[in-house]
């Protein structure tokens, strides 16, 4: 038996699905996700190998859990590490397994919360095990996502604000955002984290670490998006948004790390649709600012709308463009620029993703 998994960079780091088919079928379903906690050696973008602890699902590391609001979720977690771990979904009452001993299997049953983006993690020795890699995304589809006018949003009707309804009803018709309405398959998960190899090494060596002392000494050298960074994140299909003008996309942005990020997007301004309140509960925004940078504090999760509008500052007389051609490539990167490094340098191999506008209008089909 291998002691550890090995994740080569650019391979086997992608998200996989759990709960998926059964959970999407109908509300109130009882669905099960089986996770394991595994030690792994993971190759960073500069070739350095770092010890990590990862959640695994049936199809690989860092599984995404997907469910529908109201589902009875049974999460079964087997701990294949030699240290105790746990499981919880912050902001969701009852979604917690306080401790899972080495080699043990524990489970929890809880009701899928209202539609939105959630973070699952190992809360033990916080923030250590979460930083070591034990985190993932739980995506909950709303039970009734439509506005009173029948337009689909990412949020349950009861949670929608009139401003969110106004934006989603403006996506598609002639006017501000001509093209297509938003559809639930137009989303990307952006999970941010940071890696300080010295901390990982200490855990691997079983040194005693006071969790309260971690922040003061945390010196991350790698800054990841869905487990990748730099070129690999920018060119990862599961990460990089792609579409035509008029095909809005929802970005589900989470920060499992300990550093605050300031993601800045080029080409379009975005709207922050939701966030969490002081108690960790999801809240849908009632004042939708159009912004080009937003704040991602540790444990933040925000739903952000990338409208895929025609970049509005291309001169009108130069559009449609004749010499410069589609597709149009733009970056999203954190503007607290230390996060743009890997191994102390190698700009821009940190927290970055590209997004691409394929053409001026959506294809007929």
């Amino acid at each position, binding site marked *: 038996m291998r002691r550890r998994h090995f994740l080569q960079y650019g391979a086997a780091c992608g998200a996989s699905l759990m709960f998926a088919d059964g959970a999407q079928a109908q509300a109130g379903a009882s669905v099960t996700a089986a996770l394991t906690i595994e030690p792994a050696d993971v190759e960073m973008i*500069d070739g350095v190998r770092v010890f990590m602890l990862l959640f695994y699902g049936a199809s690989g590391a860092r599984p995404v859990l997907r469910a529908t609001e109201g589902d009875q979720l049974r999460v079964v977690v087997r701990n294949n590490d030699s240290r105790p771990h746990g499981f919880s979904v912050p902001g969701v009452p009852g979604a917690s397994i306080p401790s899972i001993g080495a080699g043990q299997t524990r489970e929890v049953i809880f009701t899928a919360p209202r539609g939105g983006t959630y973070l699952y993690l190992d809360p033990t020795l916080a923030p250590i095990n979460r930083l070591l890699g034990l985190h993932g995304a739980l995506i909950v589809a709303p039970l009734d996502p439509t506005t009173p006018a029948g337009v689909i949003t990412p949020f349950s009707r009861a949670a929608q604000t009139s*401003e*969110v309804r*106004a*934006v989603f009803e403006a996506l598609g018709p002639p006017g501000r955002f001509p093209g297509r309405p938003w559809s639930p398959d137009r989303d990307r998960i952006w999970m941010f984290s940071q890696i300080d190899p010295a901390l990982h090494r200490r855990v691997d060596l079983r040194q005693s670490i006071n969790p309260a002392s971690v922040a*003061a000494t*945390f010196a*991350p*050298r790698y800054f990841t998006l869905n487990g990748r960074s730099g*070129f690999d994140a*920018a060119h990862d299909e599961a990460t990089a948004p792609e579409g035509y003008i008029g095909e809005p996309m929802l970005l589900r942005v989470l920060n499992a790390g300990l*550093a*605050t*990020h*300031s993601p*800045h997007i*080029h080409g*379009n*301004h975005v709207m922050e649709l939701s966030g969490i309140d002081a108690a960790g509960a999801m809240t849908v925004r009632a*004042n*939708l*600012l*159009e*912004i*080009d*940078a*937003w*704040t991602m504090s540790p444990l933040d999760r925000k739903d952000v709308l990338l409208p895929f509008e025609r*970049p*509005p*500052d*291309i*001169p*009108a*007389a*130069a*559009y449609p*463009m*004749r*010499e*410069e*051609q*589609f*597709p*149009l*490539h*733009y*970056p999203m990167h954190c*503007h*607290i*620029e*230390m996060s*743009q*490094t890997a*191994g*102390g*340098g*190698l*700009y*821009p191999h940190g927290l970055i993703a590209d997004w691409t506008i394929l053409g001026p209008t959506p294809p007929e089909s």
Partner: protein
Amino acid sequence: MADNIFDGTAQDAGELTFDTFGCNVFHANPPTPDRLAPDINFELGVRFGLRLQTPDFREIEVWRFDWEDRPMTNRWPSPAIIMRQGQVVHSTVHSRSNTHTIHHHGIDCSPFNDGVGHTSFEVSGRYTYQFQPSEPGTYFYHCHKNTVLHFEMGMYGPLVVYPPEGPGHVYSGGPRYDSEKLWVPDDFDPRWHTLGHDAGLCGDDPGLNRFDPKYFVVSGVFAPNTLTDPAVVVRALRGERVLVRLLNASYGMLRTTLGLDALVVGVDGRALGRPGSPWSRPFTIPANTPFELSTAQRYDMIVLSANAGTYPVKFEFLNWITRAIQNNGRGIANTRIVVT
């Protein structure tokens, strides 16, 4: 050549993306695609070697942009470029040495004009960026090569877009203001200011993941001089509506506390509640209530007072991990709003 490079980003981006990052960054000096006659033009050259005197009587070097076609300012931050909504703007970078770019932050233009090396090209000679700002508000421009270092070294300046009729309203028909002030808090880690322009790009480890600022500035003025320097202090008459344009250019969270209520009327170059944005509206930050901006965020705020007085303003520079005030609690810049 022109056809090839225009096609290059579109169909075969391999050579023009990350693939050539590092020691051998792709660079070019192409003609501007889809070029129009400009309504306004800026010529900005890269200048190294300006040494600022710090409050503890040391010197720290900054890199910057300065005018190429008119008398240089020889100052830092780089000169403001000011334009009006709807103008066709040309902004030319003269790299002068090595490669650089200008990214007009918040301007949503085409990739050729976006100034990002890894989605287009870096510039070794000169290149004219073209755009037509669609929304009035506060922006900035900066070099986007080895940005982690070049931005910290000071290669940025303000970019302000007025409505077509000029200053005085946040947008055409929008909230009125009488005067304006630009506050750009920034922080310097002197260790970084001894590095070469390409530090880290070739696989060396210059420690650009670690930022430990020792100096704190607002709009080019070092703290504690910010308390009295007229470049930072706001002076207004009773009832005068001052538009404060606040940009966080530091590498961390900026916590700001104003002694007056502030009506936030724009964020990141987008006026709140303007036509076409019914889902947003201005909001008030009550006096003495701290608020935070992360790096590159901008707030446009109207402040005023019916009563004469001196109202304190405090900027606290917070570490991006610990959220502690930088430099063992010394990372603070104070200034004032003086109403007479």
